[in-house]
């Protein structure tokens, strides 16, 4: 006999419906899954057999064929366990005809444990959102209840296979198979555990991060070990504007696909990702034979912090260029092409030289100029071009470290950032464009050179060797500084300040 269960899977960050057709025919006992299943889907056979038996049903010793349709699209994920198990129960007539009829109103997702209980599976949120128009009630594991809540689709959350079949048979009521998610109040308003006021000294770096937050610019911090690079980066999310509903949903989708959602974690804070420098380029950007989002997508609408920037493999750094430019990662494989959003702010940190002491007034650097050059040249020009702000961090003096008065708090800085973002929103007419991502046309329109700028830029080019290419970036950053000061026009003062954030543009040779 034949049975069809509706389920779903993901492609990129979008979900789509899949029907799991199960046919049971007499013949040699086999159990085959067709329809481009991935390794994890093929393994579901074993879980299904055990779960069906351990739930008190018989596993039919017959020729079982499972087809996941549309058959030409690759299927991945463990959510097919439950629909396959239900299909087998229906096709072997262990469910009543009424229950089988009722099953048609459900979209079934869930991984099965061997004892028949349901386990969390990945990608529930995007599937629920995409399949909302089917008008079906979703069956999801209780651990995925948050995603059901967020999707605002009707759903039930049985704990076990048996509970679900009992419900289908009418033995259990709707309420009995539904747990509801109550957002814990205190967690929503939980204050950030870190604050900018804890960072002593480093006024220039703090200012640079404020500008970065206000204009969506990428930052590179170059400093001696122990000068607070990581400390500053970790506090960067605390001065970013809060997430909008839409942004939060997008992030939750990505985390859902990666099965990284905690039990009760709604994204009210922007994500902060700090992968280790040994990361492979696929882990960073996403991919794999069945593409998965990488760290850049997990940092979507948040911060990607790359500590020891120069130690990352060359290929890993180069793949960052596309998402930094477009805010999107497109992964093309022979079988399929998927896109993941990756609109993040890059905060990178590196030592000034391999030994880490270059520019330290107390400890001499033991590197040769050649080694220093080689170290710096690991960051390629095209990548540096995408980083608007670079700051040198110097050791904090004891007086600063021990100072009783604390610096500005994150809340104070955030207030200015929010005002600057608001100005940008009004200017660009949307909240996605920031000064860092404005187009050339917008640059021409909104970033007019002030009077007297010629002299400054000429001096900067002559003295520092600034290239004409960096001029656009200087203007964009100057625009953000003007926004922070609530000015309509960029002034020469703003341009001069930006020069401080371009130390790597300086030529390293004696001027003549």
């Amino acid at each position, binding site marked *: 006999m034949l049975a069809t269960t509706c389920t779903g899977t993901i492609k990129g960050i979008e979900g789509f419906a899949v029907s799991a057709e199960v046919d049971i025919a007499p013949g040699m006992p086999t159990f085959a899954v067709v329809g481009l299943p991935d390794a994890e889907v093929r393994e579901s056979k074993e879980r299904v057999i055990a779960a069906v038996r351990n739930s008190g049903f018989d596993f039919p010793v017959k020729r079982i064929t499972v087809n996941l349709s549309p058959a030409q699209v690759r299927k991945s994920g463990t959510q097919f366990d439950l629909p396959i198990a239900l299909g087998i129960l229906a096709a072997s007539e262990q469910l009543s005809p009424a229950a089988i009829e009722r099953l048609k109103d459900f979209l079934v997702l869930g991984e099965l444990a061997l004892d028949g209980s349901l386990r969390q599976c990945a990608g529930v949120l995007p599937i629920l959102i995409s399949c909302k128009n089917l008008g079906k009630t979703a069956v999801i594991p209780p651990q995925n209840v948050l995603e059901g809540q967020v999707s605002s689709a009707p759903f039930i959350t049985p704990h076990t296979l048996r509970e679900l079949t009992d419900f289908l048979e009418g033995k259990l009521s709707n309420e009995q198979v539904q747990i509801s998610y109550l957002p814990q109040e205190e967690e929503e308003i939980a204050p950030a555990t870190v604050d900018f006021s804890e960072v002593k000294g480093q*006024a220039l770096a703090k200012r640079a991060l404020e500008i970065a937050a206000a204009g969506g610019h990428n930052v590179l911090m170059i400093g001696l070990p122990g000068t607070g690079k990581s400390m500053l980066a970790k506090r960067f999310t605390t001065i970013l504007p809060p997430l909008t509903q839409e942004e939060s949903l997008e992030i939750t989708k990505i985390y859902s696909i990666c099965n990284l959602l905690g039990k009760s974690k709604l994204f009210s804070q922007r994500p902060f990702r700090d992968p280790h420098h040994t990361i492979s380029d696929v882990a960073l950007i996403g991919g794999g034979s069945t593409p998965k989002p990488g760290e850049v997508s997990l940092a979507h609408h948040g911060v990607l912090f790359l500590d020891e920037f120069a130690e990352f493999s060359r290929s890993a750094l180069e793949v960052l260029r596309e998402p930094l430019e477009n805010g999107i990662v497109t992964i093309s494989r022979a079988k399929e092409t998927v896109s993941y959003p990756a609109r993040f702010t890059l905060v990178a940190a590196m030592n000034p030289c391999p030994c880490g002491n270059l520019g330290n007034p107390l400890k001499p650097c033991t590197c040769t100029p050649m080694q220093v050059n080689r170290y710096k040249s690991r960051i390629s020009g095209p990548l540096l071009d995408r980083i608007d702000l670079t700051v*040198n961090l110097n050791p904090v003096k004891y007086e600063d470290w021990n100072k009783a008065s604390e610096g500005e708090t994150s809340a104070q800085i955030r207030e200015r950032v929010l005002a600057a973002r608001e100005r940008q929103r009004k200017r660009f007419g949307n909240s996605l464009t920031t000064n860092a991502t404005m187009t050339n046309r917008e640059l021409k329109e909104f970033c007019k050179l002030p009077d007297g700028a010629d002299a400054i830029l000429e001096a900067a080019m002559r*003295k520092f060797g600034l290239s004409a290419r960096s001029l656009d970036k200087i203007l964009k950053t100057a625009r953000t*500084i003007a926004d922070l000061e609530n000015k309509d026009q960029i002034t020469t003062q703003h341009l001069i300040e930006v020069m*401080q954030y371009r130390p790597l543009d300086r030529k390293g040779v004696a001027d003549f």
Partner: protein
Amino acid sequence: MNPSISQQERFARIQLNAFLYFRADWLTQLIEIFGSAENILRQNAETLAKEANISFTTAANLLKEAHGINPQEEWEKTEKIGGHIFVQEDEEYPQSLRNCKEAPIALYVLGKLPSEQTACVGMVGTRKITPYGRRVAAKLAEELAQSGVTVISGLARGVDSECHAACVRLKKPTVAVIGTGIGRCYPPENHALEKAILANGGAVVSELPFNRPPNAFHFPRRNRIIAALSQPVVVVEGEVKSGALITAKLALEMGKDVLAVPGPIDSPQSGGPNSLIRQGAGVVTSTADILDYIPQQLRFGLDPRFFEHTQEIPAKPEEQLSAREAEVMKAVADRQVSLDQVAEAIKAGVPEAAQLLFELEVKGFLACENGLYSKSKF
């Protein structure tokens, strides 16, 4: 060019010159033994080894290296970029270098070498220059150039570049003895500087075959040419074990005066000069200290004002500054300070401090390196 030397002999010298694993004076001796360079190249390895009393392997290597060079091509390529190849018999070959024991048997020259009547001062130092070294090198080289002295250095990073750049700024000639073949610039960022040296009547000199890439052993070797061309030699900064000290040692062996710029005793870059001073080298505290060592016969035409040990102190740069800028200069003092420190010292925010530092840097009072500001003028 000396017409008594045939073109074939020149070519043979150019070929022999490419054997860098031999000291130049050994090559000169070989030429004496065989009468001419041409004659050497006609020998096979066995006779060469026997006659010259060298090992067979060395003789074979020498011949292999020499025959690996196409002298016609060397000559044409050098002429094409406006250079010349001189042998010791040519009158263009610098007399001071000819007098040196290890004079190269062929010298590649781009630009114009200073005449024998020109006072030449060698300035050498570390590639890892400190702000102090930068200030001193620039000031001394500038004043030497103004007084009419030609500064000789090695076009390396750090002190060398600072010295050449100072002369070029004043459009005065300077000589760079490089550790690569001519036609190639190392370090690459000094390409523009090399061009500027040539444009201002200076010269670029090398004993290495055309376009030869840099190699670690080239640099100590070329130092003897710097020492030979100069009198005296000034060591600005350098570690105790450094190329600058090799030059100083070679200069002493040639009977040249070695002068050293004293520096802080805890700065590794001043370790070299300080140890030279301990061993009796002349102390440089002003340009006049250097000019005192210029041979009498070369002093004609030098600006006498620079010989005064009590030069009138130039107007303090601070006087041209605004009150706020002067505060910044005071905060910088003789240290290396970050923007944060300046901002705190003058009680200003980041934007104001950035503005002041920018103005001062553009005016040339401050230099910035790795985010640290230091004085760039005395």
